[in-house]
């Protein structure tokens, strides 16, 4: 697999970098783009449209690229992976999520993936602030089975929480999903999802919720509970809420974190990045400090020991990690770069999707979710 990559901070820069990378006759057929909404995304799509490449892109909340020329973490920029893959071993498709539930959208993705490959693995990006990442995952699994390999994230908009996008080489979609299906006969696809967030405080009960909208916690308006426990103002949410997600205790299963992604100040309700079930037992949670960097580095090293070979790494890191760790977040990304020394691109997300090494897929918040793509050696 031939992979080239670049970073830029403008559409003009994007055009130039594209020209530079392809000048020597390099002819990519699959392009991954993570871009800030600061850049004119429509212009990028229009630039790519006539170039006969499959595009897998979304808006971000900060981007990063580690390769032999760059080790950058930016805000307001764009990162791009240009790959020459064996035709017929992958497919990309954009799905609209309008007028349907996230679960139904997932159903369509799952069905499509099953139609294009007998044993597919999926990379998926979702857009739309009301998109319920958990329902999207459940919808895909409902059709494709619980054991399907799947990694991805929800698009961001530089923490504006106004409008997020996914895009192909033809179209920009502010409520939908873009999926890249790989034929697992040709690729090794593995990854990790690790958080490090810890529970704080007493158990609380979700007393009224519908999907990812929480109306009351312990009988009190959800927004009031958040404000009073965190001692913050209306305007501090949802940004602060992202860093102090609810930890949902699941009997007999690992706890999951759900971050606030939107607020209705009038109705005093909170919208989370995934389902928060009615009656669920929850606590607040927080990053326990900068030691979670060490925790993540250990997990990355464990993963490296199990999966030393890769062609390219894609990282979906929660925007809350970036907020919580600031410039020190580079230390956990550095660890991956140092181990494999292969191109690593990614963005800060509003939610992550992934399988922990060979376990079934779930939807997360606050995680460092990384996937490794490796073309199988017997395929040339």
């Amino acid at each position: 697999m031939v992979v080239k990559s670049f970073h830029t901070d403008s559409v003009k820069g994007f055009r130039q970098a594209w020209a530079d990378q392809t000048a020597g006759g390099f002819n990519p057929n699959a392009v991954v783009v993570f871009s800030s909404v600061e850049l004119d995304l429509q212009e990028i799509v229009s630039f790519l449209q006539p170039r006969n490449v499959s595009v897998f892109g979304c808006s971000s909340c900060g981007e990063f690229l580690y390769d032999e020329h760059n080790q950058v973490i930016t805000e307001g920029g764009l990162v791009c992976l240009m790959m020459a893959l064996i035709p017929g071993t992958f497919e990309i498709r954009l799905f609209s999520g309008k007028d349907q539930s996230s679960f139904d959208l997932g159903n369509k993705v799952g069905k499509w993936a099953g139609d294009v490959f007998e044993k597919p693995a999926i990379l998926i990006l979702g857009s739309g602030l009301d998109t319920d990442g958990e329902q999207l995952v459940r919808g895909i699994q409902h059709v494709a089975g619980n054991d399907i390999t799947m990694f991805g994230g929800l698009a961001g908009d530089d923490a504006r929480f106004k409008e997020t996008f996914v895009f192909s080489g033809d179209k920009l979609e502010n409520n939908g999903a873009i999926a890249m299906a790989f034929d697992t006969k040709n690729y090794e696809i593995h990854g990790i999802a690790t958080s490090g967030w810890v529970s704080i405080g007493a158990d609380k009960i979700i007393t009224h919720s519908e999907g990812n909208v929480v109306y009351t916690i312990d009988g009190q308006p959800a927004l009031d509970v958040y404000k009073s426990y965190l001692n913050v103002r209306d305007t501090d949410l949802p940004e602060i809420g992202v860093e102090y997600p609810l930890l949902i205790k699941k009997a007999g299963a690992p706890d999951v974190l759900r971050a606030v992604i939107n607020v209705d100040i009038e109705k005093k309700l909170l919208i989370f990045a995934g389902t928060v079930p009615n009656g669920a037992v929850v606590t607040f949670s927080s990053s326990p400090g900068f030691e979670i960097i060490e925790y993540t580095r250990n997990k990355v090293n464990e993963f490296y020991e199990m999966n030393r070979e890769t062609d390219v790494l894609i990282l979906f890191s929660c925007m809350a990690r970036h907020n919580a760790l600031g410039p020190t977040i580079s230390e956990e990304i550095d660890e991956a770069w140092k181990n494999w020394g292969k191109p690593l691109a990614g963005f800060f997300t509003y939610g992550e999707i992934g399988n922990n090494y060979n376990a079934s897929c779930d939807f997360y918040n606050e995680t460092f979710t990384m996937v490794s793509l490796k073309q199988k050696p017997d395929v040339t």
Partner: protein
Amino acid sequence: MSLKILSFIEELSNMQPPEDFSGLKGSIIDELRKINSEYDKLQFKYERSNKDKNILSSLLTRTSVDLMKVSDNLKIRAEELSTLLATIPAYVYFKDTSLNYMIVNRSFAELAGVASDQIIGKKIQEIFPGYFNHEYIKKEMEVLESGLAKYNIEEEMDLQDKKRWLNSNIAPIRNAENQIIGLIGISWDITERKLHEEQLRESKELAEAGTHAKNEFIASISHEFRTPMAGILGLSEILKNSALTPEQTDLLKGITTSAENLLVLLNDVLDFSAIEAGKMEMDYQPFLLDRVMEDISLVMKMKAAEKSIIFNILTDPGVPNLLIGDSQRLRQIIINLTNNAVKFTEKGKIDVLITRVDQSGNKANLKFEVVDTGIGIPPGSMDSLFRVFSRVRQDKSKLISGTGLGLSICKKLTDLMGGTIGVESMPGKGSTFWFTLPFTLSNLQKNKPDPPLPEETTGFTKKLVLVAEDNVINQRIVSFQLKKMGFEVDMVGDGQEAFEKYHTRVYDLIILDIQMPLMDGYQVAKAIREEEKGTIRHSAIIALTANAMKGDRELYLNAGMDEYVSKPFTYEILQKAISSVIG
């Protein structure tokens, strides 16, 4: 980022050092950049810590308040639990997995007769010497092994001075990791309840025996009554056909009326006791409503005419005619209500109105109203009207004759058939007794003509009948009636004689009384059928019986009878029965 370092880097970059120091300049700038990067990180950590400190301290404050609330609640719960344990009138104990007592409540200690602290850590055998209920201990072990509670374990405990019955529930106790760490047992003293149960059982047996005896008594007394009644009615009928003076005819009419009234009374008492004993069974068959009403009309028109009262039956055109129901009981209710109407009406008229209340699918509710222009009922008496033995007293001296059973039987019959009954009345103007009953509509023969009435027997002339009857009066009645029908009668006085006669002639019909000396009716019928077995011969046999309780019919038919007639019977009933077997 540190502005000082940055400006230093910038300054350094602009410097033009001598050639020898240019490499060093690059290294210094690189190092300064690293220092700047580390500075950025430290500064972020510092700011971040300050920001986190505020939020975390708020979170921790709120959490400690929450935990205090939880702790307060736990204290209250513990207090409540301890009060509950102290006051609950049950024996409560906690045991560890080795079945040693860990906690017991006050009642338990009192039962054991020792202080609580002397029970803790010990086993049941040490607390109650002589306790060897291995079953109970086995159940405790099962609860610990299975993790499933067991309920309502009853055992009799032999305490030092007395025996007590206990009912116990045992449930496992688990720790936070869901491991079973012991069990809780709650036992209730049910000795008193056990005693009551025993007493109740005995009382119930006694009551059942009493009811049984009462039913037996009524059955036998009805038989005893019916035999002389048959005599009186039968002889009266014979007498009616002989030459009598007008005065004698009047007297005879008096006798007949009295006997008929007595028969009604007898039937009422029988019905009532059958209903009370729960033995009244409804016989749901297809019938024609107009046919039933015609029969009633025939009887009641005559009775009404005797008092110069007009009697009408008015059926709404929407009322279905072919119904499934118990026509006998319907007839009984209407006759009872119309009889009352005739009894309490001196002038005017009696109308029976039949309307359809509702109909859905093949179900219809019909309403029957008996409207009279009689004396009416005082408002205060209406509520009690349908109660047993209730009769309306019109004035201090006059009490209308009757048993007081009729209306209560009507009510019970309508109840049994799923209907309702009621009355509206204005004293001096008249009363309306009404009832509703549900019927199933029969789709059989809907478009066919009415079934023909049993053919009027024009004569059994020259037909030979053998009658076995031990009662001389009944012999005369039956003989008279049969001869009137044209039969040639051979009369015998017991069953054995009947069986002998059976061998001497070929009879067209054999009529057997059930209760006879030497051989009873069943035995004769069985013996005849035994002889006929394997031949084409089948003698027509009718049983005469005084046992009129329902359920007897099957008995006679099983014994080989073709039909049975219950005493006392009229000429018409006997004729109908005969027609049905040899007609």
